[in-house]
């Protein structure tokens, strides 16, 4: 079934059109992005049961106005819109926004492209969480929580959560009139075990573009999380060094996203903050590697147009090891003289748009996982990524995983190490990739920050890869 356009967008579209018409009387370019998002988060843990719809990450209603004035862009965001309030919005833009820091030297941009585009599109789902109902959803999570606690007395807690967001966005400019209706969901189990004062965590997430059918994928999560949490009790710190590693698809995804993806966000090119700008057309990875960002796959970051009214696309960033293209928002593309790639995204209507990743991944290869593991003489299998930080300027890697499983002579020894920091120089790691599995897994359970803020939903992933990595 297709996600329905919501009533707020339908009912208020004439009002937003009127706001746009009034803005176009004053400015050479103006656009209005209106958003209405609903969603809920359900959780069960030893701390209790909760059902809430109080986070702007999933619930928001408001609009952003972008105007082009004196060669530069400015924005007003708010959530009060009415027939009589339109003139107040225009007055605030003219009398407060455009006099801010008015005597300072400003960037200069051309007018944005505004080719005519009109559509109304929706993503698909099988089960509407609202129809499934609060009772059924929370009961499923409670059962998983209780089952997890019963599996092993060393388990301190088994935290379960399901979050969904259903949003509609309307973009209006002089020539564009687009509506998109999207629903995504994320669910996870976190099992916690105790080792003295230390609490070990094992995280098992699933995600999808769709509705409550996600529960079909959750059955095996509890067993797997509990098993790993127990294993972590006996984990040891790893001796820092360089290791031959097999990365799980989630770990591959973290490398794709944190180590390389942030470096091809072209607002960083504009600021001279990304080394990738100097490597276009050059080998930055093994010839086995082709990297995409965009809407070729469906997950939590899939949409039809971005928050500046640019259509989403599939961008091939690395093709057979060669850096081919970056991703960009509208303003960065104007500054660089390139075409925007549909990657201008906002945390919510109150925030500025930046160049942001969407669904980012390495293509699958031809190797079998069992052959990859068998090929490791003395190395590690890295899984359960926990966090990462970008360094586009210097291509330094800081990624963390919870588990490294020892492999000797092509077999797992049963010994595990934790926690693990991946460090080093990004192209060194990517060029060291010698095997790529014939599978592809994408996961969109997390949010991505720009620096330490501006959180947006993203997905990443890829195949299993074999690489040489510095571990701390």
């Amino acid at each position, binding site marked *: 079934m297709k996600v329905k356009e919501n009533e707020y967008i339908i009912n208020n579209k004439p009002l937003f059109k009127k706001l746009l018409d009034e803005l176009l009387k004053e400015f050479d370019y103006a656009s209005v992005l209106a958003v209405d998002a609903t969603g809920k988060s359900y959780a069960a843990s030893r701390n209790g049961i909760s059902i809430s719809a109080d986070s702007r990450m999933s619930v928001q209603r408001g609009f952003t106005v972008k105007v082009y004035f004196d060669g530069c862009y400015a924005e007003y965001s708010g959530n009060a819109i009415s027939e009589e309030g339109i003139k107040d919005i225009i007055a605030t833009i003219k009398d407060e926004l455009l006099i801010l820091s008015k005597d300072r030297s400003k960037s200069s941009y051309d007018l944005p492209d505004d080719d005519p585009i009109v559509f109304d599109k929706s993503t698909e789902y099988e089960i509407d969480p609202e129809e499934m109902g609060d*009772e059924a959803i929370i009961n499923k999570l409670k059962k998983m929580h209780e089952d997890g606690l019963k599996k092993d007395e060393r388990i301190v807690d088994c935290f379960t959560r399901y979050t969904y967001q259903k949003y509609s966005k309307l973009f209006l400019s002089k020539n564009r009139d687009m509506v998109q209706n999207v629903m995504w969901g994320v669910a996870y189990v976190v099992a916690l075990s105790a080792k003295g004062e230390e609490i070990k965590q094992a995280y098992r997430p699933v995600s999808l573009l769709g509705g409550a059918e996600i529960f079909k994928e959750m059955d095996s999560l509890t067993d797997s999380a509990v098993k790993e949490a127990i294993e972590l009790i006996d984990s040891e710190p790893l001796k820092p060094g360089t290791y031959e590693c097999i990365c799980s698809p989630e770990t591959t995804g973290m490398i794709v996203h944190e180590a390389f993806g942030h470096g091809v966000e072209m607002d960083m090119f504009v600021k001279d903050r990304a080394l990738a700008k100097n490597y276009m057309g050059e080998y930055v990875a093994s010839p086995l590697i082709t990297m995409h960002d965009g809407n070729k796959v469906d997950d939590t970051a899939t949409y039809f147009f971005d928050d500046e009214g640019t259509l989403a696309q599939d961008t091939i960033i690395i093709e057979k090891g060669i850096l081919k293209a970056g991703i960009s928002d509208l303003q960065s593309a104007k500054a660089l003289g390139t075409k925007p790639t549909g990657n201008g995204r906002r945390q919510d209507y109150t925030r500025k748009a930046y160049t942001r990743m969407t669904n980012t991944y390495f293509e699958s290869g031809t190797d079998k996982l069992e052959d990859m593991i068998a090929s490791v003489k003395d190395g590690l299998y890295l899984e359960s990524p926990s966090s990462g930080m970008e360094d586009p300027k210097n291509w330094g890697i800081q990624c963390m995983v919870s588990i490294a499983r020892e492999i000797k002579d092509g077999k797992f020894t049963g010994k595990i190490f934790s926690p693990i*920091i991946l460090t080093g120089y990004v192209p060194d790691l990517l060029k060291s990739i010698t095997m790529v599995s014939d599978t592809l897994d994408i996961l969109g359970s997390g949010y991505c920050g720009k620096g330490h803020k501006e959180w947006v939903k993203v997905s990443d992933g890829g195949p299993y890869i074999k690489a040489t990595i510095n571990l701390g």
Partner: protein
Amino acid sequence: MERYIDILKSCGVDIWFIKEKSVYSNELFFIKKKLDMRRINNSKDSIITVYCDKEIEGEKMRGRSDIIVADTMSDEEIKKMIKDALYAASFSLNPFFELPAPEVSDTVVNKSTLNDIEFSKIADKFADAAYEVDNDKDAFINSMEIFVEEHKVHMRGSTGTDVSYVKRVVNGELITQCKSLQDVETYEQFAYDDLSIDDFKRLIKNTLKHTKDRSFAKDKPKTGISDVIISDAHMPELMKFYFERGNAAMIYPEYSNYKIGLNVQGDDVKGDKLNILYEPVNPFNDEGIKMIERPFLEDGVVKTICGNQRLSYYLNIPQIGSYGKGKMPAGKVSLDDMKKDCLYVVNFSSFETSEMDGSFRGEIRLAYAYDKDGNESLITGGSVNGSLLKSQKDFCFSKEMQNLDNYIGPLAVKLKGVNIGGE
């Protein structure tokens, strides 16, 4: 807000809490010295919490659910949302808990020198200050974002709570660059609740210096064990371990063993003992509870447990709210005197402490290595990986202090026996 209360009553909701928040912001975005974008945000919404009491198999239970509503929503729409929330609350049942005693107050205007200046001039004051000290011949401001916000918060509850406050804050991020020997950058965030122009200038000067030093840094640290100095904004991240562990959210599910009287550093403490006060960030927390300074740790011993209303009730402790800001006294050793036989990491890619196991870690962007005689060399790359559970017996806090939005206390701490990954 009266409209929401009338709708709550018409829906048969007896127990409720409303937090209305409006935010008006001025935002400036710079690339090099040019203004790249201006923004104003003017938004207002309310979180409405509804409670539902039930008795299940003889046990009294209380459920709650929260929704976000906006003034522009119609009565019918809000009514439907509240009914949905009440239905949801009937399935998010937990053992019964009392709500805190009602708090009533006139609007509290947060004391701040930001109130002494016209709102629309504040962002420019900070921008002018930044570019005034952006005069190094090698290192410079690459880009900067300044957000000036005025928050107006009003909370009312069915128990009689009626409190409100107004607060101005300035926050943002700063990236400095230097191309001297290598082309490098440093990322810093800042947050002030005063017109802290001098602190802001000092931050920019230090960041420019660190960036220039990083440009000349080539060597990785030696792999092994070393004493490590952590400072500046990494201090509250390190101390977060104790704050989280002292919160009912970790104590109630038994992730943390903290209780009143526990000596969290254990016996045989050779270094500084922990003395931490809980500091209020806002006059009232999100549950309408008045926030005041309270003792948390005295010589390493837990004096107060904080937490939300529900978990505090379960733990049978006073409902004082959750605190995330700490105040600590100065240490006995100057930062300069610490700089012997250790690694002083001034900038990480990202520095993280886990409240679950006490581990702290980060990839080094710039560090100063000091030998036994205090000779300094520049370090970049490699990583730090340690455990507060091991290091907490030997804390050495600096005499120098700092005042951040989430921490008042020593500028630096020296930690013994930290794992270093490098060459």
